[in-house]
Each structure stands twice: as structure tokens, then as C-alpha cells.
């Protein structure tokens, strides 16, 4: 039609360009090329240590190399504009591919099953002709039975003397590839939501202290953009004492207690190899009302108002010895006792036994020889409290009655000459718990993506859209049966099934 021709020629420049872009973005070739590029550039970031201190880089590379790498962004490669751009291109590619192909797939999925003519049957990859002696009715019955036996539900179509049984299985498998692709898009979307509205922060909280701020590693992008545009002030406090920007929580988090458990040796003594770190955290509202507490450990964090606190590290608070907690029980009544808390060097009068107890010495790691009862003090790295031990002096008035050692894990009996026992409960306040704090509102989108990403490939690779046609024609009183079929995946498996169906019909 000439009119159509004219319209064709008058296609605007914009239209031509957008068509070109669409075609470019919808090609599998682009996907493969992008995957190749991503695979290659990802290697770079594993060879060059990421986000190290500048001095570290200068130690490893020359100034010129550092400058070059700096310009290319190799020191924080996975966050450079060009790497993000590659991921963006992949996203666009996936989206356009899906939009481009899905309508076609949808047509295949929803297409009604139709009887096929000679040509159509011949074009199918699997076909077989059988001559059946019992007549068409019997043949039809036999074919119906065979299909049902293999789990195919069929529809029937009749035209003149020809009947066709048409059936399909596994249509859903056509969705597999889309589920996979969409799940990847979901993961990207979730990651973006996290980057825009979430943050990563840390908080070193000494035992007994509370904080209503956490210190940011990265500020939520959304807050920054809003602040830059002057739309809303960022909640982030920039001018803190340490210079690290702080994010207000809207409540207090307090470290009630922190401790490390160690694996024990055959004697029941700690080996120095940590088996668990745990902190008890309490949440208070801004009025000081306690809301709840939880004992967190590695792999088991606490979440409040979308912010999660992870046990991450620990350490000694500089210049703080901590308080020693002791429990004194009478030998004849071990169920009751008095608990006292005292600083190293300090003395305290204990009414129930009429004695004054003084902490003479403290060590984070004490070992008692079970035989001689001699106690040795050891120093530890990072002030690890492997087996905290105190030396105590017990006084009556000014006069020392005896001195003894008590420790967290006892080997051998501590010296307790009088009618009471002093037990070591703990050292408190000398250490801080290192918390990793994150808010990530996108994580559920990512997780949904993860679940779909586990399901999608299974459907795509192990499902198969199988179609079967059984045509029955009358041929001089005998039935001519044509079985034909196709499968979009796992042809070998389908061939086996196809042959079994044919066998069932012809036997």
C-alpha cells in the first residue's frame, strides 16, 4: 500500500534512534559482552586491595601508579561510576530483554491448543505413524488411555473423519527464565533501596554506658540529597567530638554486660580460643524507660526500629580497670550470700562475715597449679580476659587474716581458711563491646530476589514445555495414528517419554 510506504519513510529521527537503542539493549549479545566485561574487571578489585589507607598503597606502588589507579578508581572499584554504570547497563539489558520477549512467550503460553494439518505435524521434531487394526473408536480409546497414563490431560477436536487429541505439559517452565531475570532486578532494586535509605555504622559501647547515637560509615544517600537540595535537613550530626558523623537513634542503647567464652581444655580450663562473644544490650526510650533487653552474640543480632546491632568486636577501655564483683557465701549455708562490687585497690567491709576485703591485684589471665595451689599471672594480647583472677586480702580491722586468689575458672581449691567462701563473679566496666550497626530497608526486597533466584533457574533448566498431538484417521477400516510432539528443553528426556507413549498406543 503506497500510503503505508510514505508513513514508513516519514519515521522520525527520534523513533529510529529509540528503536536502535531498544534493539541494542534487547540483544543477548550485549548480555554476554557485559558479563565478559564484568567478569574481567571484577578480577582487578580482587588483586588490588580495596579501601586501604593511602600510606599502605604508597608502600606497595609507586606514586605514579597510585595516581593512575586513583584516577581509575581501582582502590574502591566496585563503587566507581563506571562499574555502577556497567551494572546499570546490565539492569537495562535484563529489563528490555524481558519486556521485548515476554509478550511473545505469553502468546505461546496462552495460545489455545489447535489441531494441526499434515504440514504442521510434519514440522514437529518428533513424529511416528502407527497403523492400528481395531478401528478408529478403539484407537481413540487406546490413545486417550496412553496419554492419561503419562499424566497428559488432552482436549479433543473432530473434523470429518479425523480426530485429534491435543495436549501439553509444563507450560509454567516458560516462566523460569523470566523469574530468574526479575529476581536479579529485585536484588539490584533492594541494594539501591539500601543505599538510599539505609546506613552502616558502628558503636563501641563500654560496659555500663548508653548511647543515643551511632557513628556512620556511610550516610543515607536520600538524606544527603534532600539536604543538598535544601528540602529537608539531614538528621545526621556532622560536628561530633571524634569527627565521625553520627546518626541519632531516637532511643538509647546500653551495654549491660559483655563477655567472651573460651573453649575449654580437657581439664576444664579456658584455652584462649574464643568460642563465643556476647553482649547484653538494653533499649531505653528517650525518657529513660526501659523497653527490652537481649543478649546478642555473633550471628544473633538485636533489631529495634529497623536498626540492627551486630556483635562485631571488643576491646579494653583505656585507663579503666573495671570493678571486681565478688560473692561471699557461708560454708554452712551456700544458698545465700552477699555480693560486693569494688575497684582494684579499694577495700570494703562485709557485714555478714565481719571482715574487710581488699583487692590487692588483678590479672586478665591467671593460672593455678592444681597441685601446689600457686597462682601465676600472665599478660594477654588485646587485654583478653581469658581467666580473670584477683588477689584478695582479708582483714579484721587493720590486721590481715589471710590473702587468697579467686578466679573465674577454678583449678584446685582456693585458700579459704575461715567459715565462708569468696567467689569470683566477674570484672565489669573495663571493656567495650564493638557493635556493627546497620539499617537496610531494602534487605527484604533482596531476600525476595534471592528466593526467586533459587527457584527460577530450577524451573528454567528442569522444566520443559512439552506438546503432543495424536491424530487418528480412518484408512479403509483401519486406524492410521500419527503421534507428533515437541519440547523446548531436555529433548532427550522427552524423546524417551514420547517413545513410551507411542509404545503404549501401539501395543
Amino acid at each position: 500500500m503506497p500510503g503505508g510506504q510514505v508513513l514508513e519513510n516519514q519515521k522520525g529521527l527520534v523513533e529510529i534512534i529509540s528503536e536502535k537503542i531498544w534493539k541494542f539493549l534487547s540483544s543477548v549479545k550485549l548480555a554476554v559482552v557485559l558479563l565478559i566485561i564484568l567478569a574481567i574487571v571484577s578480577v582487578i578489585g580482587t588483586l588490588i586491595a580495596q579501601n586501604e589507607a593511602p600510606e599502605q598503597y604508597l608502600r606497595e606502588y609507586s606514586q605514579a601508579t597510585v595516581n593512575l589507579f586513583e584516577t581509575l578508581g581501582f582502590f574502591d572499584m566496585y563503587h566507581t561510576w563506571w562499574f555502577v554504570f556497567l551494572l546499570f547497563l546490565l539492569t537495562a539489558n535484563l529489563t528490555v530483554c524481558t519486556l521485548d520477549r515476554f509478550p511473545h512467550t505469553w502468546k505461546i503460553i496462552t495460545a489455545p491448543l489447535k489441531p494441526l494439518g499434515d504440514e504442521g505435524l510434519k514440522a514437529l521434531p518428533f513424529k511416528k505413524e502407527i497403523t492400528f487394526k481395531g478401528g478408529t473408536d478403539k484407537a481413540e480409546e487406546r490413545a486417550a488411555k496412553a496419554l492419561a497414563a503419562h499424566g497428559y490431560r488432552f482436549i479433543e477436536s473432530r473434523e470429518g473423519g479425523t480426530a485429534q487429541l491435543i495436549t501439553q505439559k509444563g507450560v509454567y517452565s516458560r516462566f523460569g527464565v523470566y523469574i530468574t531475570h526479575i529476581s536479579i532486578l529485585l536484588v539490584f532494586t533492594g541494594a539501591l533501596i539500601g543505599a538510599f535509605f539505609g546506613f552502616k555504622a558502628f558503636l563501641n559501647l563500654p560496659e555500663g554506658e548508653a548511647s543515643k547515637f551511632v557513628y556512620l560509615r556511610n550516610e543515607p544517600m536520600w538524606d544527603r540529597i534532600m539536604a543538598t537540595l535544601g528540602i529537608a535537613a539531614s538528621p545526621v550530626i556532622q560536628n561530633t567530638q571524634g569527627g565521625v558523623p553520627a546518626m541519632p537513634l531516637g532511643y538509647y542503647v546500653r551495654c549491660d554486660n559483655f563477655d567472651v567464652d573460651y573453649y575449654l581444655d580437657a581439664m576444664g580450663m579456658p584455652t584462649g580460643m574464643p568460642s563465643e562473644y556476647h553482649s547484653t544490650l538494653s533499649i531505653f526510650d528517650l525518657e529513660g524507660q526501659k523497653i527490652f533487653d537481649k543478649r546478642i552474640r555473633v550471628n544473633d543480632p538485636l533489631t529495634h526500629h529497623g536498626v540492627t546491632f551486630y556483635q562485631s568486636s571488643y576491646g579494653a577501655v583505656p585507663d579503666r580497670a573495671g570493678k571486681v564483683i565478688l560473692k561471699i557465701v557461708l560454708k554452712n549455708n551456700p544458698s545465700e550470700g552477699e555480693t560486693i562490687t569494688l575497684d582494684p585497690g579499694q577495700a570494703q567491709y562485709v557485714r555478714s562475715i565481719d571482715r574487710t576485703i581488699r583487692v590487692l591485684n588483678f590479672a586478665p589471665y591467671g593460672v593455678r597449679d592444681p597441685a601446689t595451689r600457686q597462682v601465676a599471672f600472665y599478660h594477654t594480647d588485646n587485654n583478653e580476659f581469658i581467666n580473670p583472677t584477683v588477689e584478695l586480702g582479708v582483714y579484721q580491722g587493720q590486721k590481715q587474716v589471710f590473702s587468697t586468689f579467686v578466679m573465674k575458672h577454678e583449678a584446685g581449691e582456693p585458700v579459704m581458711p575461715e567459715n565462708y567462701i569468696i567467689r569470683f563473679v566477674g570484672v565489669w566496666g573495663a571493656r567495650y563491646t564493638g557493635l556493627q550497626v546497620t539499617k537496610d530497608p531494602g534487605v527484604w526486597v533482596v531476600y525476595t530476589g534471592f528466593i526467586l533466584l533459587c527457584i527460577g533457574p530450577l524451573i528454567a533448566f528442569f522444566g520443559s514445555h512439552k506438546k503432543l498431538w495424536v491424530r487418528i484417521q480412518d484408512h479403509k477400516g483401519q486406524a492410521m495414528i500419527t503421534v507428533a510432539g515437541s519440547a523446548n528443553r531436555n529433548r532427550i528426556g522427552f524423546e524417551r517419554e514420547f517413545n513410551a507413549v507411542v509404545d503404549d498406543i501401539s501395543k
Partner: protein
Amino acid sequence: MQSSMLFTIATLAYLAAMVFYISFLSFKKDIIGKTATIVTLSGFVIQTVALFVRWRESYQMDIGRVPLSNLYESLVFFTWSTVLIYLIVEYKYKTKIFGAFVLPVVFLALAFINVAGISTDITPLVPALKSNWLFYHVLISFLGYAAFGVAFSVCIIYLLNDMEDRGSPVNLIVALGLIAGLATLGYMMGAAGGNMRRVFWYGLGSLFLAWVVYLTVAGARNRTQVYLFWSLCVTLAVGLLVAMGVDFVLFKNVATQESFRKHMFESTFLNQSVGVRLVSWVAVAALFTLVWTQGLKLKTLFKQYTLSSDMLEEITYKMIAVGWPLLTAGIITGAVWANSAWGTYWGWDPKETWSLITWFIYAIYLHARYVRGWKGTQMAVIACLGFLSVIFTYLGVNLVLSGLHSYGGMN
């Protein structure tokens, strides 16, 4: 019975199975093939029992952890998964020929553990590893690796089957010349110190990559190059294994895992004595020459088994179609675990990144068949490259690069 005893019995069963499979390949007697399968199966059952016994032992020692968390246990589990996947392939495709290739790998890995004196102790876990995710993450990842391992074995056979001639001996001479030249250059630049060494390795890596890209783009037209690639893959696999084996045997009594990493290849390629180094490289050249000249003879052996290229390609594809979803799930369970431990599901640490690179390579493989003109040969090259990446993800990253997975765990 103790788990170590059971592991030894399983190892011996695999050794017997290996002999049976290879004899089956040579004599083609049905009874031998059947015995091979039965022996493998019983070895597998014993190994499975042994894994559970070891698990129980860890509870008796009051440590109570899944037997999947150190180098020894992961190597054992890798062999277990490989045998499992192999048995499934044998059952599904009714062919025993791959056994002659898979079982030696399994036996060598187990023998390697024994001679190497890798610590078999059940050691306690650091807090970061105490998570139920550890089990799922490692289990799934290793099943994936095993599927890729079988895919690799099959596509190595495919590449061989695909070859018509190996081209003129000039190819071999040029290749040997290149190996000699690059090795010399490597020593020189390595001796020059820090940055030069790095430049050499980056250069070599880029060169190899460029070659592989060339093969995937033009491989179908230049078969002799693909044959060279095949020979190199086989030489690399055998050579590295032997070199590491020699290291292990010589360092057996002094080596912890840490010191082994530092002294890797010092008994061969990095030896103090120039003579030893020279001998090592001559051995490499000899191995390469042997593979290159004898490879096609192996092909005539396969000819008797009517292995069609289609079937080999199909199995490779199937194995990758099994492995890739497993790898995906392995990466995902790792990410979920990391999120529950550190609040970050993806941190771009080298091991994560390398598993992603592997994921990319196999994704390329899965999409490449929809790109016009990319046929079997190129696909097989990509599949081989994928497995090299798997090996690097598994061993290389732990040994060469550092990150969370070297179990530093906490700051």
C-alpha cells in the same frame, strides 16, 4: 568404628574402582564395568557413613559441629559430592567411560590428603562460623563445585573428540618456546622484586585471557589452537597437582597450612637451586609434549565407545545447568549468612567476588548458545575456563588472596 578408619576403606574402594574403570576402558568387558560401579557405590556408602560418624565424634568431643569446615573436611566432602554426581551421570546416561577420568581425580584428591598430612583434627570453630548457615552454604557450594568438576572432565573429552588433527609440529615448538621464554621472563621479573613481579603476573593473566577470548571468538576456525589449549589444560591440571604433591611430601613433617602457603612450589619451580628449577621445567615441557603428541591416540580409544559430540555437549550443559543453580544458591546462602553475622550481605571480599566471577563465566556459557555462531568448541572452552575459575575460587583465593574467608572473621 572410627571415622578415619572408614575414610581409609572408602579411599581404597575408590582406588579399586579407578583400576576397574580404566580396565573397563581398555578391555570393554561388561563384568568389569559392573564391578567398577558396585565398588564405587560401596565406597560412596562407606564414605557417607564415615561423614556421619565424624559428625558424631565432634559431639563426643563436645565441639559439636558439621564436618565441613576445614581444608581436610572440605576436600573429603568435595570427593564425596563428585562421586555422587558421577554416579548420577553414569545412571542417567548409561555410560561408564567417564569413570576412568573422574575416579582418578577423586582418588588423587584423597591420596593427596593422606600423604600431605593435612591436619585431620576436629578443631573448634571461631564464633563467626557458628551458624546453621555454615552447613547449607558449604554443602550447596561443594555440590555445585562437584557438578562443575564433572562438566570439566566431560568437556575435556569433548574437546578431544572434536579434534581432527593437531596441526604441524611447529605449533608444539612455538608453544614450548613460549613456555620457556615466559618462564625465564618470570624468573627475571620476579627477581627484580615487588612491582615487576606483579606486572609479570598481570601481563601473563591478560595474555592468557586474550588467548581464551580469541579461542571463543575464532576457536571453531582454528582447531589447532584449541588443541593446544586442551593440551595446556591437561598439562596444567596434572602438573600443578604433581608439583603440589611433591611439596606436600617434602614438607610433610614441617608444614602447617600457613607455612605450606608460604613455601608452595619451593621444591620445584621456586627451588633455590637453578638445577632443580630447570629439571622441573623440562618435566613440564616433556609432559606438555607427551599430551600434545599422544592426545589424539586417546581419541582413537574413545572412538570404540561411540561417544557422540552431541551427547558430550548435552552432559556438559546438563552438569552446568545443575551446577549453576547450586552455585547461585551457595552464593545466596553465604550472603544471607553474612547478613546475619555482619549486617552486610555483600562486601566484595575476594572470595565473594571470585565466586561471582565464576557465576558470570557460567552465565556466559548458559547464554552463549543463544548467540549466533557460538558452537560446541567455544562453549567447551568457556566451560573449561569456568572450572579454572572454580579452582581459583576454592583454593587460589584461600592461598593467594586474603579476606573474610581466610577466617580472620572479626576485626
